[in-house]
């Protein structure tokens, strides 16, 4: 597996059309190689927009995204695909591809030649990715026959087969039961890559991320370690709820709780 790379974002903004309402206002941040950054915020705050700019799906209106010092729009799509991989929420249509074939797609940007024939090295990498996600026994199964958690693991294995230096995940814990959520987060913590992930669950984000970026209506409200950014005041304002940081005694961890602002005052 290749090494992690620094991710550097400068004055990045985006709007759907020229003169349209910006969905992301100029934002800057740095993620050092190997760190995990979470993107949090309410629905429609611009989390997906920011991620799409990072994996070169949207072209920035202003600013730049650099991976390991190279602006991704100065590189070809193929070169970027060798540095940045993404695990998205797209549901593959059932075209009878097997798990091993989906994972093999990760080798696409590395292949040359007629039809993208696989070499021995490609096969080793595919096997390693399947093994890492404990998918070997499912290699011949069709994606459509798998559970949500297994599918998510297939998509992560596919991204790892890409040998990226930066991995971007869009709500990787969505629709997963608690065990699979914890497994995905555990994986995120252990991968030696620079990781950017959007997360709905603020407690999960606080637990897994080195840094979080809090978005509200396309504007960055805060960036830094979770304790500094996910404050009671900031979360209460952004989400329109009453947020409290409580301390759980047996596990000795902080935990955020949320209540609707008007209903929480009965005590």
């Amino acid at each position: 597996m290749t090494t992690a790379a620094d991710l550097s974002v400068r004055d990045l903004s985006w709007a759907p059309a020229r003169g349209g309402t910006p969905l992301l206002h100029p934002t800057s941040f740095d993620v050092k190689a190997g760190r995990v950054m979470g993107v949090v915020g309410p629905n429609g705050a611009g989390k997906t927009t920011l991620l799409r700019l990072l994996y070169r799906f949207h072209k920035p209106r202003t600013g730049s995204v650099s991976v390991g010092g190279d602006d991704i729009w100065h590189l070809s799509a193929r070169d970027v695909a060798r540095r940045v991989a993404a695990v998205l929420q797209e549901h593959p249509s059932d075209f009878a591809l097997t798990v091993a074939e989906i994972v093999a797609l990760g080798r696409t940007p590395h292949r040359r030649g007629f039809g993208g024939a696989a070499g021995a090295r490609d096969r080793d990498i595919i096997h390693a990715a399947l093994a890492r996600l404990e998918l070997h026994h499912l290699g011949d199964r069709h994606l459509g026959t798998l559970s949500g958690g297994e599918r998510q693991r297939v998509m992560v294995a596919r991204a790892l087969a890409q040998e990226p230096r930066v991995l971007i995940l869009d709500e990787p814990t969505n629709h997963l039961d608690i065990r699979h959520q914890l497994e995905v987060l555990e994986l995120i913590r252990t991968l030696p890559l620079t990781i950017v992930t959007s997360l709905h669950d603020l407690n999960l984000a606080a637990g897994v991320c080195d840094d979080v970026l809090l978005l509200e209506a396309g504007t960055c409200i805060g960036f830094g370690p979770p304790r500094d950014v996910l404050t009671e005041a900031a979360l209460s304002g952004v989400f329109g709820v009453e947020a409290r940081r409580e301390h759980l005694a047996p596990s000795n961890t902080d935990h955020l709780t949320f209540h609707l602002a008007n209903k929480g005052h009965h005590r």
Partner: protein
Amino acid sequence: MTADVGTPVRMRRRGGTVAFALCGLIVLLASLSVAISVGAVGVPTNTVWGVFLNRLSPGLVEQTWSQGREAIVWDIRFPRALLAMMVGAGLALVGASLQAVTRNPLADPHLLGISSGGAFGAILALLHTGLFLGLLTVPLLAFAGALGATAIVLAVSRFADATSADRLVLAGVAVSFIVMAAANVLIFLGDPRATHTVVFWMLGGLGLAQWDQLIYPLAILCLCGAWLVSRSAALNAMTVGDETASTLGIPVARFRLIVFVVGALITGVMVAFSGIIGFVGLMVPHVVRMMVGGDYRRVLPASALVGAILLLWADIAARTVMAPEDMPIGIVTGLVGGVGFIWLLGRRRQA
């Protein structure tokens, strides 16, 4: 452990692919043999291959058949059967490719109106403009018509925000109706003496196949088919989703557009030589996926093979059901394909 689990699986699949290819080729040759021997005048199989071998290398086999038989086999039935194979292979390739880039299991050159556009262009050339570009007039105008219809379908689907599978097909069917109405106006305005031929051709027929014209569909099939097969990894990626394909380094919008243009080229040329033959592009890829799986490196060649076999048998049926009358082959594929389409809808409901 890891290699031990993975390797036999891969070997088994590779062995299966080779076996499938061999079986397919044998069935194809057998079907070709039947297609040439069956008809208003029955010709024994050994005569069929005798004629063939003697054409390859004169005097190889002792000629035990009449000149009339020779003419039937070589001048009429061989080109017809070869055209059937090319049209079947071409339409199946187009269907498989369009299904990948639209992620739509119902994508098909006929349902998306591409065939109708090709027919419009071909009718324009046959009845109105005359062959101002020589023999290539009909295929070129058919290609232009197919491309035009494709552009309209894509514009309508964008206008109607038809990103979902079913709505794209609805847009295609709607455009198909409009284009066919326009094509019928061309027939209505055309020379009445020629309309019978044109209508008959439009229903799908391979009866006009001639040796000296086969080079055009063959060239298009080989060039476009090779290009599509060379892009099978990208087609695989497209089935997962636009954004994921884009993160794999594929220029999604441009790639889809090129596949549509290539699809229009194949469809237009096939329509020009055989009329509208529906449902081959829809059904064949689905049947093929059940046999060889979903990897486009296998789906594309297998679709071409199965499409060729299917159309040979459709042509055999068309020639024998009402013998000695030559039923339009579009009726056979429409009947078989329509029933298959209903089956596909049921399967999708279960999924």
